[in-house]
């Protein structure tokens, strides 16, 4: 049996997916990247291998992706997360035409063709506005666990708009709103709106989408999803583990390159 691994080293988390030759996901693992990329990769890969009951030398081809891809010396090939998210999303939801990935330090919107190849893409520029990091900082301000942040926003009855898209300025705006005793859920709803408007801008630069798949950790945030669906006027495909889509795409590329070589 041949096996393939995809490793996605993002700024917040590292994911590994192991596939067999029939594209079946044998195992996966997710852990925090932290300050030491090499350690995070070793740890996550080790976890995925032990879950699959495989020794490392059983992996026939490894593709690395994500911002840390260059620091994985043993990878057979490095491919950007843009191509990998496209491929992963296409594999899970073959009708996907647009992939929205809201990640820790950047967000991207990718238009793909019927084979999962990238037609066009847009990314946020140099700033945390419209990324997962923005929401994380704000959750910190409210001292709410990030996993509950989206659900809280759904309780809002009267959304308060946040005018600043800059993370630092938005934070001081939020603090003054808190000081005025505005209800937390209304402010939080406004913060989610802010992220979604930035992302929606990117969606429009690559063209009005057909079926949409969301990847990345923020896909688990119902507050973001609901607002995006409001713009799209249709439901979004979301996998139970949206974070592993990049690693899955990398593993699919690993198989493709193994067979090609």
């Amino acid at each position, binding site marked *: 049996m041949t096996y393939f691994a995809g490793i996605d080293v993002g700024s917040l988390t590292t994911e590994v997916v192991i596939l067999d030759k029939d594209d079946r996901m044998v195992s996966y693992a997710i852990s925090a990247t932290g300050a030491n990329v090499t350690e995070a990769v070793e740890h996550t890969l080790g976890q995925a291998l032990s879950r699959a009951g495989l020794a490392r030398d059983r992996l026939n081809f490894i593709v690395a992706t994500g*911002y840390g891809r260059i620091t994985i010396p043993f990878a057979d090939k490095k*491919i*950007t*997360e*843009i*191509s990998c998210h496209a491929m992963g999303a296409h594999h899970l939801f073959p009708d996907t035409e647009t992939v929205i990935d809201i990640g820790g330090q*950047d967000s991207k919107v990718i238009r793909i063709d019927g084979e999962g*190849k*990238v*037609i*066009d*893409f847009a*990314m946020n*520029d*140099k700033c945390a506005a419209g990324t997962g990091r923005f929401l994380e900082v704000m959750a910190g301000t409210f001292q709410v666990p990030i996993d509950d942040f989206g659900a809280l926003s759904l309780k809002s009855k009267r959304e308060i708009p946040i005018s600043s898209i800059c993370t630092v300025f938005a934070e001081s705006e939020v603090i003054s709103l808190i000081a005025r005793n505005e209800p937390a859920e209304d402010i939080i709803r406004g913060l989610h709106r802010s992220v979604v408007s930035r992302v929606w801008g990117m969606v429009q*630069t690559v063209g009005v989408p057909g079926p949409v798949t969301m990847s990345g950790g923020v896909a688990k945030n119902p507050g973001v999803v609901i607002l995006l669906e409001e713009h799209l006027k249709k439901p979004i495909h979301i996998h139970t583990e949206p974070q592993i889509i990049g690693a899955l795409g990398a593993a699919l590329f690993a198989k493709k390159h193994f067979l090609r070589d």
Partner: protein
Amino acid sequence: MKDLGAPALFRLQQMQKKKRPRKPNPHLGPPLKCADRLREIMTRHYYLSRFVKGAKPVAWVTSGAPVELLRVFDFYTVYPENHGALCGAQKLGPEICSKAEDRGYHPDLCSYARIDLGHAFSGKTPAGRLPRPDLLFCCNNICQTVLYWYKELSHYWDVPLIVFDTPFNFKDIQESDIRYMVSQFEEMIPRLEKISGRKFSDKRFKKIISLGSEASLTWGRVLATMKHSPAPMTIFDAFVHMAPVVSLRGLPVSLDYYRILLEELEDRVEKGIGAIAKEEKRLMWDNIAVWFKLRDWSLLFAERGFNFVAATYTNAWAETIHYLNPESPFESMARAYSLVILNNNMDHRLKLMEGMIRDYRIDGLVILSLRSCKPYSVGQYDIRRLLGERLGVKTLVIEADMTDFRTFSEEQIRTRLEAFFEQLEE
């Protein structure tokens, strides 16, 4: 400028410099032989500037100004934008920009302006020393920034400023526009005579006009050699080799230089010598060069078999300046300088780019969005969409400044470039 005895000094200086042998890069073709000649011309130009004060009148000139008129009066010309590019390539952008920011100039101001003002305030430059101007000569055919920037210099040094105002071309150039521009030239001449202490000569003017036109035409032919595959040069070479047509235009040296460069390139085309080892995809660049990344990127692209063979930027000096015609020197000069890409409408730009994409058989377009240069960067997303619809060309937009790398995000840009490569390689 034989009169200044500089060539001997220059040679002496060259002798003192030890030549480091460059290791050949396997992804690049053989380097252009002309590069040494170019370095000599440009070094000499900057070197002479140290001795020019008093010997010749000195003018600081914007890149799109009708310099041919100044040449009649024997002005030695300094191009702050060219100097800005030099500072950028030497990675001095942030340091010199901050000298202007210290005096309250906003970081959103064009970084060429910040470098130039920063240099004026601090004297910082990699070129030794630039001679103070006797005249500031500014043409607003490239942007409005230059107007305020040159006004600042004029105020700071108390130096006369001449502005040449070119009406924006919304659709077709009007006769009244031409008349308006020609009348400005007529007004300038007595002022130029006074500042330079030299008389206007019609005969000399016509000769210079021909030289300028010829240099621009020859530069156009130089660029056109890249229509061949493999292209004998890359746009990264052209970014460097454009210096004479920008800043020495109207002088015999620029025309002579492009003649030998053209000869070398034609020879390479004949022998099938490419600028990069394996030209697999051909790209076009839109906007000014990112000067501090020139070397890194020329390698990054060459490694993947991608060659930039066209750019709207290098093309700007081949597009209209050859309209110069000694038969109607003033009218043709008005036309040549008011129809440049940045003073022309979007439809024009779109058609120009469409033509280039076809002629150079372009597989992908890289658009640089440049906060410094608003007139160049406005409308780029529409251009990208329309070119995509009409020609199906794949386009990448990246953001960077041409000299100020404090806003440059290495990792993000690298990921975008690599994703673009993957997109085209499929």
